[in-house]
């Protein structure tokens, strides 16, 4: 197995809380190293208390085991700290299509004062914040003032 093949297998591993995004789309898959029979994978949490990290590790093991790969080591690293800037463009488009507003471009420099560019349902720019926190630590809750639908916003982080 080559590194590319492993990465290809891991592209099937999705975040359990946002199942449209793979761990690569989300930017939490940081490195893959392959030497002989041994595979070493480096992942990083989105938030310190992200409850999905253990499930993600199990899902990685399961995906690789399906291809007969069992000599797998998974390490976690905190630094450099994960940022939404690492989310892929494809990932951002998948998020929008799923109904979650993607993190604003260059919004991380605003340090928490960022907001979604538009409503992911009707694309109106008339939106307002309902709550700084949404269904998970990485999201905030907004509503559209035109189509009146509430929606999650993946905060810049």
């Amino acid at each position, binding site marked *: 197995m080559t590194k590319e093949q492993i990465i290809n297998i891991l592209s099937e591993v999705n975040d359990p809380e946002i199942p449209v995004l793979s761990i690569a789309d989300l930017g939490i898959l940081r490195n893959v190293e392959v030497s002989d029979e041994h595979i070493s994978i480096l992942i990083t*949490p989105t*938030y*310190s*208390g*992200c*409850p999905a990290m*253990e499930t993600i590790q199990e899902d990685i093991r399961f995906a690789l085991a399906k291809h007969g790969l069992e000599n797998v080591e998974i390490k976690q*690293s*905190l*630094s*450099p*700290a*994960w*940022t939404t800037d690492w989310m892929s463009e494809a990932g951002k488009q998948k998020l929008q299509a799923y109904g979650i507003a993607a993190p604003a471009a260059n919004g991380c420099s605003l*340090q*928490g*004062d960022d907001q979604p560019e538009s409503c992911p349902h009707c694309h109106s720019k008339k939106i307002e914040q*309902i*709550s*700084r*926190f*949404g*269904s*998970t*630590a990485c999201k905030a*809750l907004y509503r559209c003032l035109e189509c009146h639908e509430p929606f999650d916003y993946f*905060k810049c*982080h």
Partner: protein
Amino acid sequence: MDLISAYIVHQADDALILGHRNSEWTGHGPILEQDIALSNIALDQIGQARNFYQLAATRITELSGDPVTEDDLAYLRDVPDFRNCILVELPKGDWGQTILRQFYFSIYQYLLYLELQQSQLPEIAAIAEKSIKETRYHVKWSSEWVIRLGDGTEESHSRLIDAMYILNPCIAELFIPSDYEYEAAGSGVGILPEAIEMAWFEQVNKVLMSATLPVLKAGKKTIPILSGKNGVHSEHLGHLLAEMQFLQRTYPGNSW
């Protein structure tokens, strides 16, 4: 336990105990969105605590040769072994008291993490770098709430004044260094809390002014009788631990 490990455990204890207090709001928040907000903040804090406990456990194991885990540190120590400040262990009180405590502590923790990013111990620097983004958001959320309540109705204003009577006496402890803080600062692993004291008062007072609340006087220190940072806790911590540690005490060694 060596003093550097104690310094790391102190950071973990502050985060865990306040995280646990905030988790007491889960299912009881005044409105659903804020219930979720506080639960998410609790999750961030318990996550930060885990990172510090894991680091301390590895270090203590290496130095002593006796295997210690993060769970041993969180669930199998008793009141005098905890190194959290009194501020975080007080009961959650009403919404105003919870908000004001979160605000005081988040600004403290934000300024602390800002400095710890330069720690000579790379693992501490990494935890600080990771945590500071979360804590910055807690500062924003709690500052907005302090202003909303302080500059809100007569009732909400008076609730915050009541909260100040309860919480303000706990502020001095944050900035009185303990032996492990001297050791950590001396070796470049951590800082003396005095280093962030002026910045803390400045930032807190800026928000208190917007909230039409009385500002705090910096530098006026009465040495408190209790010192949670040195293991001399209020009566409240024991009750908290009784609930938090129940499972591990009843079913020793149980794991996920």
